[in-house]
């Protein structure tokens, strides 16, 4: 589904963020990208969602180079990808329900579809009774669950989670991880970037470890050892 081919990212003058990255992500895979901060995880993700262009190399999405996508087609391509972040990035003036509905409005879906799908999504993330609460009235874990529901609003093929549990305590962390596993089991590819050793060791999924911009290990059922 996704193929990184000899990706280099060099920030001028000579900060080598990524070097010689070759990576294949298959459909319905659950893959952890691990590494210390500064190892290149975030750069890798920024390239994957086309926020930045690599200095060299290609990223193929179903055999099409994503850096060939025209700017006006970019939003439509991005709707195939859901994203969640450490800082949630919810709209503070909208309720949980409205935050999810907003993503669908943006995609031009009609009102009945939105009503139906948002209720389903709220059920999936187990937040039905919190639908009318604003982000400031929700706990960190709940906020992240709203963010996940929003990310799923376009029924993406790929869900990218960039340190999704960085701001959460242990209990909520596993809530989120279990939710990600469930989403993966429903057929969505998940890329999880984290530096949390416990999560990686507990998950027993494919682990890609980055260090100083290079992939130093790529194993099924891997553990986070440095």
């Amino acid at each position, binding site marked *: 589904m996704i193929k990184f081919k000899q990706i280099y990212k060099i920030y001028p003058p000579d900060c080598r963020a990524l070097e010689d990255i070759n990576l294949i992500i298959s459909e319905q895979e659950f893959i952890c990208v691990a590494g210390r901060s500064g190892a290149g995880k975030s750069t890798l993700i920024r390239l994957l969602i086309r*926020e930045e262009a690599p200095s060299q190399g290609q990223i193929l999405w179903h055999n099409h180079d994503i850096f060939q996508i025209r*700017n*006006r087609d970019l*939003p*439509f391509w*991005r*709707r195939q990808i859901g*994203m969640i972040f450490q800082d949630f*990035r*919810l*709209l503070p*003036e909208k309720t949980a329900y409205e935050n999810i509905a*907003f*993503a669908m*409005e*943006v*995609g*031009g879906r*009609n*009102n009945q579809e939105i009503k139906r799908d948002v209720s389903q999504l709220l059920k999936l993330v187990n937040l039905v009774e919190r639908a009318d609460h604003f982000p400031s009235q929700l706990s960190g874990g709940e906020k992240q669950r709203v963010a996940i529901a*929003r990310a799923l*609003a*376009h029924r993406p093929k790929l869900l990218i989670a960039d340190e999704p549990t960085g701001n959460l305590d242990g209990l909520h962390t596993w809530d989120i991880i279990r939710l990600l596993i469930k989403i993966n089991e429903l057929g969505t590819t998940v890329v999880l970037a984290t530096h949390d050793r416990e999560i990686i060791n507990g998950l027993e999924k494919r682990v890609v470890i980055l260090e100083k911009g290079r992939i130093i290990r790529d194993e099924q059922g891997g553990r986070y050892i440095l």
Partner: protein
Amino acid sequence: MFTSLIRVIKAGWLGFWRNRWLSATAIGMISLAILGIISLLLMNVLIGSLITNLEDKIDVSVYFKLDTSEKDILETRKELVKLNEVRSVEYVSRQEALNRFKEKHQDNQVLIQSLRELESNPLKASLNIKAQMASQYENVVGFLNQSKYQEIIDKINYLENKAVIARLSSITTTIRQGGLLVLIILAFLAALVSYNTIRLTIYSSQKEIKVMKLVGASNWFVRGPFIIEGAIYGIIAAVIALLVLHPLLWYLAPKITAYLPGTDLYYFFQVNFVALFFLQLAIGITLGTVSSWIAIRRYLDI
């Protein structure tokens, strides 16, 4: 498509309402810009009518020798009227000149008395020439200085008026050019200030724009609400400018008329009301939407 349009308009209205205070600032700035541009326009109208008034007052009189026949004078008049520079030529015969003199000095018994004692009419026939513009009298006088007119023309009062005419013509040109320059500079400044205020409102929504891009909004869906917001600013600002302008002119116009007879701005305002309002709307909406358009550009490439 239609649902999207409605959503964009709704979002624009919501953004406008949510940032009430910033919106009020932007509207205020655009109102000022419109008022500035319109009052400069009115000033131009005022100056224009003032200049026309003044130019109407100056003329050049050509006096003919006493023994010149009326036929020769009318012949000269015909020639003059053919000139492009000449707006009008009035013939004042000797008798006419006498009548006017008597009328003007009817209270002055001494003058009337002495006139009566003269046996013949001492006044000369003349042509009063008005040119299209003050700067053109030079040419007209040049035309009359041809040798064939030398024997019948007694004198041309241009030389006496020359300094005044020259000064007036240079002043009117300066006022016109200066007015235009000030208009352009002020309009530019007003546009710049409105643009920056709108940029501020967009800056405050930066986070929201980022989230919109994140959830896959197309550039139009992000840009649309801000452009609608800009248009709302423009429309409200135009109405406010009108509400300020109307009583202001109603109050000021009579005072201006007292100073400069022949110009009534309030009348001008009433006659051109619809055109002025549409002009204000056009200025406001253009300023609002174009500013939004430019200001949001840098937040769109994510």
